[in-house]
């Protein structure tokens, strides 16, 4: 038997496969056994009730998709009263994704969701910081640092910072998150993109722009996961375009300790369970006993530091 256990800080996951925030909900319980997953990750919530973005909220692009769901939220009370108890029936760590438009707002919701039943908090810092110039917290090390520092003093739960591929400073942001107390990095969120209907000449998303997810995002997010693994010592959770077991292996080799599956679940609702079986098979066939043998095993010895840390296409 192969050992699929993996550790994110103190948190032990029975396997490295979990859903990506916003692509998972209680509804999936009808399609698969939620007990099989390494962790449960909820859709980002905000303290206040919110509507989310105008329709259409999703469109297709070549081999992938864009979304501009926004963060519709029934508010924190509903979440605590209904969602947390739902997931408590399962013997699987619950990770709650939170967001806010100010550092103080972030700290407030963080404190409020630090309740029994929650095992870690994922911090979605890809949302606009309205105190500064409206750019997302995750765009700059300074804003990442300021929000993570406030969060660190607001909770004792593990904090996972979720990075954005839209920044030109991936490594600096990763290091800022680590320094200000993040216990892990989720790499990454979606990439700002656009599509236009050539007949109506309207943007295909009601919100004009949206986030690219799915296979097209993979090479970008994998590069970020690799860069982060090289520059920080907290665990990396790979996320972006994973749809096959080969994708998972690639992220693990790049240095990810666990991975999240997002869009693939929309194509095959059973994707995570299928991937779990495929992962076990793959390791068995390759005679790899522990997934930890794979993590960070990339053979990059020929590369110079310059290359590892480059932030532009060559």
């Amino acid at each position, binding site marked *: 038997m192969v050992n699929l256990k993996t550790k994110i800080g103190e948190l032990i996951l029975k396997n490295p496969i979990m859903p990506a925030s916003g*692509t*998972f909900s209680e*509804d999936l319980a*009808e399609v698969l056994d939620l007990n099989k997953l390494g962790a449960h990750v909820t859709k980002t919530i905000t303290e206040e009730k919110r509507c989310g973005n105008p*329709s259409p909220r999703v469109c*297709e692009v070549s081999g992938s998709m864009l979304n501009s*769901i926004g963060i519709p939220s029934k508010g924190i009370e509903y979440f605590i009263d209904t969602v947390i108890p739902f997931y408590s029936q399962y013997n699987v760590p619950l990770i709650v994704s939170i967001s806010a438009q100010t550092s103080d707002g972030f700290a407030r919701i963080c404190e409020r969701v630090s309740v029994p039943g929650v095992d870690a908090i994922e911090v979605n810092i890809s949302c606009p910081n309205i105190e500064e110039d409206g750019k997302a917290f995750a765009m700059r090390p300074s804003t990442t640092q300021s929000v993570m520092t406030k969060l660190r003093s607001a909770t004792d739960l593990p904090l996972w910072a979720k990075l954005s591929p839209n920044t030109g400073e991936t490594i600096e942001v990763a290091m800022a998150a680590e320094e200000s107390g993040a216990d892990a990095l989720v790499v990454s969120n979606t990439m700002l993109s656009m599509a236009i209907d050539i007949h109506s000449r309207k943007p295909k998303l009601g919100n004009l722009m949206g986030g690219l997810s799915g296979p097209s995002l993979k090479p970008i997010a994998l590069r970020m996961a690799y860069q982060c693994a090289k520059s920080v010592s907290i665990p990396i959770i790979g996320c972006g375009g994973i749809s096959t077991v080969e994708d998972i292996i690639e992220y693990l080799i790049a240095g990810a300790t666990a991975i999240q599956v997002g869009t693939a679940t929309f194509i095959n609702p059973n994707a995570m369970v299928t991937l779990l079986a495929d992962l076990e098979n793959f390791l068995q066939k390759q005679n790899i006993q522990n997934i930890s043998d794979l993590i960070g095993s990339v053979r990059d010895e020929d590369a110079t530091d310059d290359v590892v840390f480059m932030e532009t296409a060559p």
Partner: protein
Amino acid sequence: MTIQQLPNIENASPATKNIYEVDTFVKSNTAITEEYRLLILEAPKTILNCQPGQFFHLQCPVTRSHQPYLRRPMSIYSYSQQDCELQFLFKVTGEGTQALSELKNGDTLNVLGPLGVGFSIEPEWENLLLLARGVGLATLAPLAQEANRLGKKLTAICSARSPNALMSIDYFKDMGADVITITDTEGTSTLDNMRHIIELKISQGAVDVMYTCGSNRMLKLLQEIGNLHSLPGEIALEQQMACGLGMCQCCVRSFNRCGVITQERVCREGPVFKIQEAMPW
């Protein structure tokens, strides 16, 4: 044929229990009009426990010329457990439906469903009126089948651009419906004429409930008439979908629930909604 039986757990909402992801096989795929095709699939019995108005989420084929990525939602046009048959009536529009149109007999098509909440037929509703145009026919057809099974009386007003573009008339007739056809080219499909026809039927006592599909124009009309005569009604709505299962929240529409605007997921709380709650767009 791999059937992936999916466990039903306590908290499942009643409407979407028994969701399956399964490979089906193409029995036939034929052009009905210039734009519409009928796809007949051989499907396992287990997945055919459907309600009229529900839909399946189809994984369209991939070729060098068509590479649809997301699944495509399609209303059930007809289903039969006895014949292990599932049918879709679809309009060839873009990438996904073009790919569907190239399916050949014997080809595999992966489907996810049945999904969503279908039409209801309350026991006290004896006279059903159905107003359909274009793709709406596909969605309303199984309602006629069900009405027939339940021994309800049915009036079907079928609208189209031209007499040639009318579809499924025989199907509705076979289901015992009183069929009224209206077309643009004949000038019979105007709002006024539709109103006239429906009012006439109502005055004849032939309408306890009204069903329709998709169009804004028809929604407004039936809301007005429904208000006037205190008649209930249901409408099947469309919205762009990703997951089809209620997870992604991309398919929401606004509804007016007693003055409160709420957002509901078309894939989950719908695709069928109360006419009086739906909001014209």
